[in-house]
């Protein structure tokens, strides 16, 4: 028997605004009613109690049982949206608990829905558009038909073994098998699988094919990076080893504890702890279901530190979003693509609504806008954690240990995430790949985290990993790679009946961790989780057979050699060809007044204030916040990097920074990568850090690398990673790539710009020595440290004029290192009052930000700026984006000492801070001494804050 309670009513002004953005002006209001459908037999009084004592707030809400909260009226359109079968709303589980806590035991299931009350005169078509674009995402939700019931979850499953006829298959049939099963295997790989099974004389089962496809997916093995690449005649065997990993090997830093072998990279923190860091992408799920995709992105990356060594305590989150043009007219939106604004709002909500409940501060990030991200938005999520020394290295199970599955239940969600994330999107992706999309349950993950760390400290398990991409099929295989494992799929707790063994094996349901548990401690292990209401189940054992065996109800559904599974993948062979593009060289006279350009750059999406997003993240939970993302007199200036205390009683901390600039990549991905590294390191130094213990992470997001030009870009970026990081002596400790980010629409393919995110983790001995970017005191002197070149290629200034240019910012790492080391010394000596790194928008933007964040005026003389080559134009000096430059505030009494510390390096006093709010820049070259910018800091700040103000 089904009952229904409606609770309301909340306003939804945001939705009304969004409807207006769609061009639908007839909406007068939108309100929301929460709907709870309860299964089971309930007395009227129990039903009423559930409404009164659990579901409705007695002060602000009303509720009704088994009828509608609002009566029909003309002009009222009611739309009820429910989750699709198999998509579990965490609220359902919580409601079940709440009902049980009331002492009511007869409710067997709860389903939630939202009822939208849309008032206004709307055509049927307009209402349909509101439903499709704003209220329901068909990937996870549906509109409940009039008087209808939400669709019910799956039915019983009757097992029958399935084998796939591979032995006699032609090449064509092999490829058909791969495509039909969404396996994303190429011909060489299917041939290798065929020859393996020919050797053992039988056909594979469906489960075996899946296990191999998951284990061999680009997502899991990075086959492009590990492939054989012919780069214009130079053969590179394993790009990863030849570049990024080579830096680390050659630098051989003693403080690198565990690099490139675990879910996150680990370095030494202090005498008792190590610190780890990982950044992942969750691009394709976020393109289809922004909230769910980004939430499970952050949820997944939090499980990386949890699954590193014997498990780290997660400490902080980071995020970087790249999206299409936010002001794109709706009629220009390709079919199958969500509007960039909806994507940005959704992915931000996803990270917020997972990260905040997890109790992890989101401390650092960026938002970038470019039209080539339209079909493929990028969502980078990072997490860092603290591990006790001695527990940082990957655990190793022994034969006889048990396989434990802990946390969330397994459902159909996330099936084919690993293989799907390795394929290109097109307009139909929304329909066919729906099962790859998951929604997150942060509290489930928080429960697992809390209990896992107790089990870790009691020494109750030998190894841990997360059930991420590829699910059980990947995680258990990986843990047992060196010995063997057997899994019994019927023991896996399911969300609902009806899953086939194939689905159970590869499901990527969230919030699950896998453990290798010695028999002696298994009782204590299971008890530790049960005491905190976390489901923990033994689903198999590790063996000494060297085989990965999967059984279902006593029947063998997979039996593979670990050697074949992990070493049988044929090396990919690819060609890469690079041709330097040439863009028209910009040709326009230098404007008399550079003020309008400065204001315009401050208003650009990439540069403008992200306060709207940052405020909605809890960036201070855990109490370790030292340098916040928002700084300055009004707590709203753009901090360069975050500083976090990891142990509340200690002054030691970490600096977290990031660098990326895909605009430079159009000219040369080599210098893009070099610039990204330089930028991340600049931020570390700007806040008072130094280069002594900085670890880097690389996250490559690229187009289809089977195309030689795209692959060549990837090669060039990787080469720069080696060249630059080697000289800066900053090893890479972990990384990830996401390839094939291309979208095909109406026969045209849009590739994302090759995008490399560099994240930096630096250990800071004494966080009380930190420096923020906001100007501090009138009368203090302003220095530029570092050389300015005529490097406007890919700059924001050229972008204003619709040019790309060719003179991309380069990096001279040996000079850069000397400069950064000396600046760090000056900061450590207490000579620096404020420091801001120069990046997008160059000197002009950095100076404006420093001034308005500190509430002080500034006078600058461009003819004083140290140049690395003759630069004849003031606009080039003001807006060049040359690397390794800083703006530094020094008190008059420290100027001499500061200049002495930087002696012999390009550094010069170029201005001073004033109490009056004027922002004035005096020209160079032909216009030396003339005022080229004359504005005030409040106007500059207003421009900078304008774009996201009304979101």
């Amino acid at each position, binding site marked *: 028997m089904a009952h229904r309670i409606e609770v309301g009513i*909340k306003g939804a*002004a*945001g939705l009304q605004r969004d409807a207006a953005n769609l061009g639908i002006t007839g909406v007068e209001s939108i309100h929301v009613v929460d709907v709870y459908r309860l299964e089971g037999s309930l007395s009227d009084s129990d039903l009423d109690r559930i409404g009164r*004592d*659990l579901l409705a*707030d*007695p*002060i*602000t809400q009303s509720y009704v049982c088994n009828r509608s909260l609002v009566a029909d009226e003309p002009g009222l359109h009611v739309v009820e949206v429910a989750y699709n079968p198999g998509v579990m709303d*965490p*609220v359902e589980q*919580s*409601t079940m*608990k*709440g009902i049980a*806590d*009331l*002492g009511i035991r007869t409710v067997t299931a709860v389903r939630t829905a939202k009822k939208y009350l849309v008032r206004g005169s709307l055509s049927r078509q307009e209402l349909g558009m509101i439903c499709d674009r704003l209220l329901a995402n068909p990937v996870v939700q549906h509109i409940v038909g009039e008087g209808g019931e939400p669709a019910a979850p799956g039915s019983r499953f009757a097992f029958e073994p399935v084998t796939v006829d591979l032995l006699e298959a032609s090449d064509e049939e092999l490829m058909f098998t791969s495509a039909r099963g969404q396996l994303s295997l190429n011909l060489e790989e299917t041939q290798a699988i065929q020859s393996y099974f020919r050797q053992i004389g039988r056909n594979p089962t469906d489960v075996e094919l899946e296990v191999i496809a998951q284990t061999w997916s680009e997502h899991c093995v990075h086959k492009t990076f590990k492939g054989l690449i012919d780069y214009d005649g130079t053969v590179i065997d394993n790009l990863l080893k030849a570049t990024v990993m080579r830096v680390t090997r050659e630098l051989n830093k003693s403080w690198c504890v565990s690099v490139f072998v675990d879910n996150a990279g680990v370095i030494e923190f202090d005498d008792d702890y190590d610190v780890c860091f990982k950044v992942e992408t969750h691009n394709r799920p976020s393109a289809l279901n922004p909230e769910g995709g980004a939430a499970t992105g952050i949820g997944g990356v939090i499980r990386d530190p949890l699954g590193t060594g014997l498990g780290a305590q997660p400490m902080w989150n980071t995020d970087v979003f790249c999206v299409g043009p936010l002001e794109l007219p709706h009629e220009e939106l390709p079919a199958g693509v969500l509007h960039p604004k909806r994507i940005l709002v959704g992915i931000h909500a996803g990270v*917020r609504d997972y990260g*905040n*409940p*997890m*109790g992890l501060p989101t401390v650092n990030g960026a938002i970038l806008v470019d039209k080539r991200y339209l079909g493929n938005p990028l969502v980078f999520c990072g997490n860092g954690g603290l591990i006790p020394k001695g527990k940082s290295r990957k655990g190793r199970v022994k034969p006889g240990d048990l396989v434990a599955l802990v946390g969330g239940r397994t459902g159909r969600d996330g099936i084919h995430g690993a293989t799907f994330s390795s394929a290109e999107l097109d307009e139909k992706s929304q329909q066919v790949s729906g099962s790859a999309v998951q929604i997150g*349950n*942060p*509290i489930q993950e*928080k*429960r697992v985290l*809390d209990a896992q760390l107790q089990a870790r400290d009691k020494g109750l398990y030998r190894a841990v990993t997360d059930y991420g991409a590829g699910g059980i099929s990947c995680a258990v295989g990986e843990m047992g790679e060196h010995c063997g494992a057997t899994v019994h799929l019927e023991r896996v707790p399911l969300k609902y009946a009806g899953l086939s063994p194939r689905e159970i094996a590869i499901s990527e349901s969230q919030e699950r961790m896998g453990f290798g548990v010695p028999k002696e401690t298994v009782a204590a292990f299971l008890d530790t989780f049960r*005491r*905190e*209401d976390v489901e923990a189940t033994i689903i198999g054992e590790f063996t000494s057979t060297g085989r990965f065996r999967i059984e279902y109800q006593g029947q063998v559904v997979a039996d593979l050699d670990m050697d074949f599974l992990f070493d049988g993948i044929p090396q990919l062979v690819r060609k890469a060809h690079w041709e330097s593009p040439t863009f028209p060289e910009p040709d326009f006279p230098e404007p008399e007044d550079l003020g309008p350009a400065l204001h315009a750059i401050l208003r650009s999406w990439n540069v403008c204030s992200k306060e709207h997003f*940052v*405020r*909605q*993240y*809890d*960036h*201070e*939970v*855990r*109490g*370790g*916040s*030292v*340098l*916040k993302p928002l*700084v*300055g*007199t009004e*707590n709203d200036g753009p901090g360069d990097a975050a500083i976090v205390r990891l142990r*509340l*009683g200690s002054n030691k901390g970490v600096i977290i920074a990031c660098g990326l600039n895909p605009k430079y990549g159009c000219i040369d991905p080599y210098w893009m990568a070099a610039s990204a590294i330089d930028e991340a390191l600049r931020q570390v130094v700007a806040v008072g850090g130094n280069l002594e213990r900085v670890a880097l992470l690389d996250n490559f997001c690229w187009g289809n690398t089977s195309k030689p030009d795209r692959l060549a870009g990837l090669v060039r970026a990787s080469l720069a990673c080696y060249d630059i990081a080697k000289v800066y002596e900053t090893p890479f400790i972990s990384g990830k790539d996401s390839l094939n980010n291309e979208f095909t629409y109406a026969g045209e393919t849009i590739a994302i710009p090759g995008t490399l995110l560099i994240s930096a983790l630096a250990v800071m001995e004494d*966080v*009380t020595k*930190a*420096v*923020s970017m*906001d100007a*501090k005191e009138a009368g203090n002197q302003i220095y530029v440290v570092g050389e300015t070149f005529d490097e406007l290629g890919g700059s924001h200034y050229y972008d204003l004029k619709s040019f790309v240019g060719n003179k991309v910012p380069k990096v001279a790492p040996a000079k850069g290192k000397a400069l950064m080391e000396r600046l760090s010394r000056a900061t450590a000596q207490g000579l620096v009052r404020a420091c801001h790194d120069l990046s997008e928008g160059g000197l002009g933007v950095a100076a404006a930000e420093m001034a308005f964040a500190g509430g002080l005026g500034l006078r600058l003389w461009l003819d004083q700026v140290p140049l690395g080559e003759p630069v004849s134009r003031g606009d080039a000096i003001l807006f060049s984006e040359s690397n390794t430059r800083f703006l530094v505030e020094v008190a008059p009494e420290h100027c001499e000492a500061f200049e002495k510390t930087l002696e012999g390096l390009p550094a010069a006093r170029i201005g001073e801070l004033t109490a009056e709010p004027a922002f004035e820049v005096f020209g160079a070259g032909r216009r030396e001494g003339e005022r080229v910018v004359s504005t005030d800091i409040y106007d500059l700040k207003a421009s900078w804050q304008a774009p996201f103000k009304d979101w």
Partner: protein
Amino acid sequence: MANVRTIVLRAAGINCDDETKYAFELAGSAAEKVHINQLVRGELRLGDYQILALPGGFSYGDDIASGRLLANELKNKLGDQLAGFVQQGGLVIGICNGFQVLVKAGLLPALSEEESQQVTLTYNESGKFEDRWVYLRVPPAGKCVFLTGVERLYLPVAHGEGRFVPGEVGVLSRLWQNGQMVLQYANPAGEIDGYPWNPNGSTDSIAGICDPTGRVFGLMPHPERFLHYTNHPRWTREKLPLEGDGLRIFRNAVDYARNL
């Protein structure tokens, strides 16, 4: 002097437990993180402690409404024990989610004997979760033992459901009369003001209230996030004392409990 023992209550989704425990330790108390299941199972008893802290977080995901599920659990499974704890002079502090729990369990403001909810903390007027620092003032007539000697505070809030709304007519004036309105949002000059100084649209800019005894205290701001001067958002530009404002609240509690 007696040792003060504090329970920092954990439950699924509580996430400010580590820093709250640290705050009580700094203030001189022994502090233990205790899962609610341990109390429900009877492994530990509230009576063996002097202070109960309900930290911030998203208990049970704040599903249905913030704090609702944990409030019901406390009321239904530990109601008598908790009432006894308060009666015998124990101190209770609910921070952010903990405040929401106390309010929804009827333990705050506890105007009448029966445990019904008399006020609520609901969605911010801005419609958004926000993390921002707020200026706070302590009205002179307040009777909260956690705020002895405190007039002004600067602390961060981080919540989406913090708007204080009184229920029936008369509740508001009774709370004022009783000295239970003990913490208000203010502007930097210490005056009552609008958004963003009042970050959530609370009636009378209320940020914290106490029960009629003054020993049960709930507040939306996070005192445990400002224990050290480097937590302050402008510590790199302002001269500040070594200890953060938030520590005063924990010291007051521990000092009071020590003299019980």
